[in-house]
């Protein structure tokens, strides 16, 4: 018959309340963590930006001679790559790669809001008319875009894209343009979302893209 100390009823009541609050808080925290930690996709061909990067406006022209600006990137997901029409090898090859990617994407519902844009970084030779000859040859669904250097740079600089026109080998002759090989993914809110670096494997690119779309849907 030992005497045990007896808590006051108020203290017991407060302890119970505290315990209940602790449990509820724990449950809320766990739910928050779970929501933010949807498993990130395992990507084979691309890098997902830690946070999508908002882009500032730019004023370019498409191959139909219509204005092409940031607004044109809203509402669908866009693969953008950079090059020039006098490029014999990598630019046509990238056109073929993206054609192959789109074949896979178009076999899924994501095809309805995915498109491809080719930006020429050689405005001297690549007029909208020239792009209208060039781009549809590879794929009638692709859009060609160009503009003066100042306007090109307002897009390329914020996307980490570089280009450089070399001197012609002969005076007045043809010249080559060095340019970034990356393919950018812009989301439907016109934000830089992911980057696909060379070498570009169409199957891996398509698989990454479809995973990125699913992941984006999960965390919206």
């Amino acid at each position, binding site marked *: 018959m030992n005497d045990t100390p007896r808590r006051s009823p108020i203290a017991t009541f407060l302890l119970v309340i505290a315990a209940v609050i602790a449990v509820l808080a724990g449950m809320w925290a766990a739910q928050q963590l779970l929501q933010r930690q949807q498993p990130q996709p395992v990507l084979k061909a691309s890098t997902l930006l830690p946070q999508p990067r908002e882009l500032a406006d730019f004023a370019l022209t498409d191959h139909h001679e219509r204005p092409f600006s940031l607004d044109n990137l809203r509402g669908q997901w866009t693969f953008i790559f950079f090059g020039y*029409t*006098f*490029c*014999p*090898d*990598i630019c*046509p*090859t990238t056109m*073929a*790669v993206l*054609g*192959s990617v789109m*074949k*896979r994407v178009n076999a899924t519902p994501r095809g309805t809001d995915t498109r491809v844009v080719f930006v020429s970084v050689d405005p001297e030779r690549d007029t909208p008319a*020239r792009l209208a*000859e*060039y781009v549809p*040859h*590879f794929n009638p669904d692709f859009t060609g875009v160009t503009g003066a250097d100042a306007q090109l740079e307002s897009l390329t600089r914020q996307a980490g894209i*570089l280009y450089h026109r070399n001197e012609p080998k002969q005076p007045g002759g*043809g010249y*080559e343009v*060095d*340019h*970034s*090989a*990356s393919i950018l993914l812009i989301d439907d809110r016109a934000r830089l979302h992911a980057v696909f*670096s*060379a*070498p*570009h*494997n*169409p*199957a891996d690119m*398509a698989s990454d893209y479809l995973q990125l779309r699913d992941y984006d849907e999960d965390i919206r």
Partner: protein
Amino acid sequence: MKTLLNTWLLLSGLLFGSMAHAGGLMADNAWVRAAPPGATVMAAYMVLHNHGEATQLTGVSSDAFASIDLHRTVIEKDMARMEAVPALDLPMHGMVTLEPNGLHLMLMNPKAAFKAGDKVELTLQFANGETLAVSAEVRAGDMDADGADPHAHHHHPH
């Protein structure tokens, strides 16, 4: 007898038709990517086999183009550029592949418009004095969904 000879010739033609060879040098799977209307440059690709002593590819010419240079696409730190390759080493009993985003022949100023299915006749010159006539097929250059060339003839050197 004549029929047998004709049959043999036909079969040989079919078997070896996609390959060109002269001396120790052979080219196979030679193709040119079809270019859009108004294009002034096209690219040609092929696999070169050297069954003889080491030599070099030093020049390529064609009646169909004003000039032809050998280039290599180089992608370094995400930047793509082209390097001129004045002479291409062909090791003894070796193989060198010209393929998209790598070594390629830059065919400049076509004298006619080419479309998929046409043939482009090229003459390759080598340091050892040999020349090789190569007939390259113009192809759309599409890839299948896995990035493979659906038209590639896979040649295994023996």
